[in-house]
């Protein structure tokens, strides 16, 4: 009995591993199969002739390179903006006592109660009035302010000793200089965490581009995949390689920076 338990637990673990990982593996494997194997009858679980043909075709026909470019532009700009404004706001909230500080902090946290799912209609109307529909600006600016980001930075900076700032002030450093040469260099861990999360949020976003973008030339990868898969006859041999390519950046970032992901979840789960 004592010996059976570890065996059972290991079997269970590997069964679960199969359930969690096989669908991803199957998608990747299928993307290398020639289309006559994808739709073969009787079905073929294994294919002997794997090929890059689907990738070449999908990449060279249609606008997928464009969608990747759009996603990259939006992800990078929005992440830079998120980190910049979250650092500034988090610094103000953590290291200054000022009139209205608490009210502003709680107001920003309270916006968690207004997810895009609830305000998509007025957002659409406002962006329309600002002429920001079908524009990069509409994709980049509004989602860049996130309560989670500001909260993460604030919690991190609160734990930094105030003396650092006070000594710098005595030495005559300006507030901006304190922020730029003391706070920012000391904040690399939280900046790294926030950057990773922002990249994931923006690259994976679907609902936001769905509302802002109707012009196909401005589709992000996720929007393009979502729209094309909704069509009646799905062209799987074109869709599969693009799905694989679209998850590649995030999977690479995740594998490279797992620790930051995990730390971010811990920090986020404190709220």
């Amino acid at each position, binding site marked *: 009995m004592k010996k059976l338990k*570890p065996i059972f*637990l290991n079997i*269970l673990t590997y069964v*679960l*591993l199969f359930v*969690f990982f096989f*669908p*991803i593996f*199957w*998608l990747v494997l299928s993307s290398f199969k020639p289309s006559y194997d994808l739709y*073969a*009858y009787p*079905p*073929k*679980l294994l294919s002997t002739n794997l090929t890059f043909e689907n990738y070449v075709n999908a990449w060279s026909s249609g606008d997928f390179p464009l969608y990747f470019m759009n996603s990259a532009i939006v992800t990078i700009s929005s992440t830079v903006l998120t980190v*910049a*404004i*979250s650092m*500034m706001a988090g*610094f*103000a909230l953590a290291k*200054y006592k000022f009139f209205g500080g608490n009210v*502003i902090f709680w*107001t920003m946290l309270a*916006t*968690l*109660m*207004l*997810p895009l*799912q*609830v*305000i*998509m*209609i*007025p*957002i*659409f109307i*406002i962006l*329309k009035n600002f002429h920001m529909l079908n524009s990069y600006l509409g994709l980049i600016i*509004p989602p860049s*302010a996130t309560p989670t980001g*500001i909260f993460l930075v604030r919690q991190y900076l609160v734990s930094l000793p105030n003396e650092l700032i006070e000594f710098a002030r005595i030495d005559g450093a300006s*507030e901006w200089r304190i*922020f730029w040469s003391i706070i920012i260099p000391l904040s690399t861990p939280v900046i790294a965490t926030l950057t990773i999360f922002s990249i*994931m949020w923006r690259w*994976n976003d*679907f*609902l936001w581009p769905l*509302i802002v973008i109707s012009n196909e030339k401005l589709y992000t990868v996720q929007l393009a*995949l*979502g729209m094309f*898969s909704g069509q009646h006859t*799905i062209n799987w041999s074109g869709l*599969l390689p693009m*799905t694989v390519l679209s*998850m590649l950046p*995030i999977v690479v970032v*995740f594998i490279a920076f797992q620790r930051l992901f995990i730390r971010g*979840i*811990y920090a986020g789960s404190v709220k």
Partner: protein
Amino acid sequence: MRLRKFIPYIFLAPAFSIFLIFIIYPGILGFIVSMYRTPYSFGPSTFVGFNNYFSVFKSPGFLESLERTFLFSALEIPTIYFISLGLALLMTSPSVKAKSVLRVFFFLPSVLSGVITALIWDWMLNYDFGFVNNLFTILGLKNLPFLLNPNYAFISLVLIMSWAVSGFFMVIFIAGIQSIPTELYEAAEIDGASTFEKFAFITLPMLKPTSILVVILSTIQSMQLFDIPFVLTGGGPGEATTFAVEKVYNTAFINLNMGLASAMSFILFLIFLAIGILQFKVSREGQFWA
């Protein structure tokens, strides 16, 4: 020196103005729009007071979509809870080897977008050439209409979402399990407690704050789910997987009835608000997770 008083406001200005223009103002505008009969975001609109709110309850499918959302969450939350707790227990068990590598694989689905999750499972569950049905064919079993039959599609979505988010909640549970003092287990072992007794009388009670957090976060995620069903089933077959958020989306952007959709949004907002207040209250009372 007097300028110094303004410095925190200057640091806050960029973030706060975006909050103001793109979250807080829309929140207010949404409520105003819900009082108008508007065929679209432009064109003549008439003030109708709370009429849209009465229409919401008569409009075909909204209450059903809300009911469906609650039913979905009621199935989803315990499914997520048990799978992620189970994974966390396995990933902290001394009997299982190579845990740090295995964790990565369990977490992997959590970093994939809803669209990719939908496509992965669309491909796995396809009636004619999906992997699962291919396997059934080879084994001589009948193909199952996973995404084509209303009940199958609903259950498939419950399982697909658990697949997508359980790794994330596993990480939270692992943190909770690792923060339990080992002295408790040592003391229990001296008293001759069995593995099950240790789980039931130490692990589970000590995980209460973590469990509350997991239940609240998974409730919010289930209630707000949009992209997976939107891409995978398009809310179908029929309206079998049309949840509340998609109903709002369709009313606003397909039927172009912004006023009515805004009223629906406001009702959703009240439901989310209630969950949020609950979350706030509970986290105030039990600030154990850190």
